[in-house]
């Protein structure tokens, strides 16, 4: 098991190295001069030269990259051009809002998705199954930003039942949660349905039926238990994605999280902040991947012992 975890960590470190190169590329392909962006268009040449030296822009590319990685390893992602604050502090400051929304949306998506998947599995190939399949396809086909906008218009503007945006108490959480959860729920419902129908065709399910268990007992105790594991690993990775900030939903609802921070960075062409949010998201996903892999191996000894996967 230790060897397995170590192997995953080494591969993860390699992936992170690639991630850092791509993130570094963002700054490199940008046509705007960072020194001008910081000092303003009217700055004199001396000031610009000084800023360039400060930022290390007069160094060769590989030196710049090495410095970038070294600073990033120490938690230093540079300073925002616009806000003049540490990018790390900005991201850390926005994280709680994003985390609350991510957990709430994931919980809602799992409850709704598993319920839909279970119902369609129980009524397999009959009307509820077909209706739920179309419904889940509908859910994944809705553009999130539009769903969010429509919910805002109806619930906040017309019914005046819920806050218009921002974060002012728990009721602010309702609309963004629905917006984020529907798409994932539709996706989970379809995955669970596939896994359930696969599981229901297995011998052990037939055995369980044969020894006299009811359909419901077999579905919940035997098939669901096996069908849920792949779904949970998927949800684990999705959670990491949500935690790195959801740009569209946070923008629509004016949610004070990392996604909105990233959007503001893009609008302002605030390169260090753009790089920081992208890197933060990628690191979260790589870490989640490792955690999920290890959990999976722990649950399934065949993987841990290298028999499959």
């Amino acid at each position: 098991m230790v060897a397995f975890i170590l192997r995953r960590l080494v591969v993860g470190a390699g992936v992170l190295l690639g991630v850092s190169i791509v993130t570094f590329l963002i700054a490199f392909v940008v046509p705007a001069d960072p020194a001008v962006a910081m000092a303003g268009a009217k700055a004199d040449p001396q000031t610009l030269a000084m800023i360039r030296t400060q930022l290390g822009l007069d160094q060769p590319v590989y030196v710049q990259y090495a410095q970038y990685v070294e600073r990033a390893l120490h938690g230093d992602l540079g300073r925002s051009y616009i806000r003049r604050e540490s990018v790390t502090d900005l991201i850390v400051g926005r994280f709680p809002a994003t985390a609350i929304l991510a957990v709430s949306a994931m919980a809602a998506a799992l409850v709704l998705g598993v319920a839909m998947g279970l119902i369609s599995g129980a009524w397999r190939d009959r009307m509820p199954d077909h209706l739920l399949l179309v419904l889940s396809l509908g859910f994944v086909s809705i553009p999130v930003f539009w769903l969010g906008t429509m919910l805002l218009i109806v619930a906040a503007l017309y019914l005046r039942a819920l806050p218009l945006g921002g974060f002012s108490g728990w009721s602010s959480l309702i609309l963004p949660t629905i917006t984020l959860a529907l798409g994932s729920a539709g996706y989970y419902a379809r995955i669970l349905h596939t896994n359930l129908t696969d599981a229901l065709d297995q011998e052990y399910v037939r055995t369980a039926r044969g020894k006299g268990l009811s359909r419901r007992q077999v579905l919940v105790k035997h098939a669901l238990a096996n069908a849920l594991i792949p779904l949970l690993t998927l949800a684990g990775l999705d959670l990491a994605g949500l935690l790195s900030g959801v740009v569209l939903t946070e923008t629509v609802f004016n949610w004070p999280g990392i996604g909105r921070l990233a959007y503001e960075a893009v609008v302002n062409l605030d390169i260090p902040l753009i790089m920081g949010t992208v890197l933060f998201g990628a690191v979260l996903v790589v870490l989640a991947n490792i955690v999920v892999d290890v959990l999976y191996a722990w649950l399934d000894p065949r993987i841990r012992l290298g028999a499959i996967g």
Partner: protein
Amino acid sequence: MTAKGKLMEMTGAFMITLLVITAIGAPLLAPHDPAQAVAETFGDPAGPSRAFPLGTDELGRDVLSRIIWGARISLEVAVTAMVVTMVIGVAIGLIAGFFGGAADFALMRLTDMMLAFPTLLLAMAFVTVLRPSLLSILLVIGLVSWTGVARVVRAETLSLAQRDFVLAARALGATPRRLIIWHVLPNALPVIVVMAVLGTSGTLLLDAGLSFLGLGVPPPTPSWGRMIEESTMYFRTAPWLAAFPGLAIFYAVLAFNLLGYGYLRRRGASNAALK
């Protein structure tokens, strides 16, 4: 199962046909010029009326006409971006799956790396630094979306490369290039086509999302995502400006999903294989 899959497939295909007809026939179908102020209510959006069934926007332009023309640009971008995605993904999947070994390891780690990035965030970052234009948007959507395609095509190639007809051709002395192009690729085509159909719903959503954030094809091209973005100021007074273009996006995405998943269901293929 089979019959329902067929029904979904047919519905999807029918919806896509309507969409394509709308896109191609936009000049004939649109009642007004999408870029011209045709209503007298300039400066103030007007709700749906007999003359303008979906209302007019703040510049007095006809929303229906803009949505019809929007079908053209939205489909063009989504389909071209899908082609870019498929070219990258299929090439990487074929090479990784066929040659295996170091090439496979390197390409799959590259895939892992790209999968680690939050798609929209990375796309936003790159469109921003490259400046939004039709070309940069197509390239960026392709660059951030190919990973799923590469994984599926690789898996398919792995199994095809071991099949008897490929081994026979190899024994006859066929070069790797010939084997890949004439033996593996044609047999991977069904999978690739399904990925392309489902991929189009993905590129439609990604393009719409970018447009909504102001990073889409620059104005005055009336793409659906941009129409919603432009309507943000009028949520209170003119909700139809956001509602109808969003329905159009939803319709298009649903159409491609119905066709793709309907096919999968009819063939009884598990969704997981083509996630």
